[in-house]
């Protein structure tokens, strides 16, 4: 499948995957983050169950401490 991941088109061998699987495939290990799929925020406890499919727009935003 093809995805837009942080504004860049990327191709994956999987036809679909969960949010958790995508984070593993891309080795996105930094844990403080916000994930949005097609503009909808995915709560952390739904990473295992939320499915990503062809054409989805996935945004991963990292949250750095300090303020």
């Amino acid at each position, binding site marked *: 499948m093809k995805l837009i991941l942080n504004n860049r088109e990327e191709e994956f061998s999987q036809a679909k995957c969960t949010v958790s699987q995508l984070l593993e495939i891309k080795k996105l290990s930094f844990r*403080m983050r916000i994930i949005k799929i097609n*503009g909808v925020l995915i709560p952390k406890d739904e990473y295992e169950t939320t499915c990503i499919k062809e054409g989805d727009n996935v945004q991963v935003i990292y949250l750095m401490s300090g*303020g």
Partner: protein
Amino acid sequence: MKQGPGKKQVRGSDSFPELVQTTGMKIFEIRAHLLRFRVGIAGAGGLGSNCAVALARSGIGTIVISDFDIVEPSNLARQYFFINQLGMFKTSAIKETIARINPDAIVIAHTEMLSRDNIPAIFAGCDVIVEAFDTDSMKEMLVETIQTKIPGIPVIIGSGLAGWGRNDLIRCRKIDESLYVCGDEMTATGPDNPPMAPRVGVVANMQANLVIEILMNKLN
């Protein structure tokens, strides 16, 4: 950023026409417009106190600000507080300071810890919300709560402001119509990377600048 309705370019001035964003409104008209809006600020520390003052100076009508902390000596290194305010709640101190700058700005202060339970009620009705927390876990909780419980209100995250220098790395990024990030998105605070006044102030004022841009696009 997208230009809103009624935008026109400045001609016959010293400005570079293609880079200038203007509505053709004069300063008193801009202030009258900004007076209609309510901006939420989650946290009154380095980001929140500086952002609140910039918004009050700009003529934002109502500022809803929330924090449970008191002003401590170490806060004076970067937060908009004064020696005579030590020991006060940050919410009371910022309200007092804003009253000395712009008495027309209404400050609604919530002196309590924000949680998933009280965030929707405190910030419902705001036109924009500024995320101004210190810890990454609170930032995450706030953004997740707003975007799932009161979706549609634009949130401006501050992420990546620790240390000094590296001016060129600080930026502002639009994720979508309801989410923006200001900061370098890579530098977390730590023992050898403290938050310092200039970089915190740049990000706080960048957040305030973006609030005004979003509100100036609401001209209808």
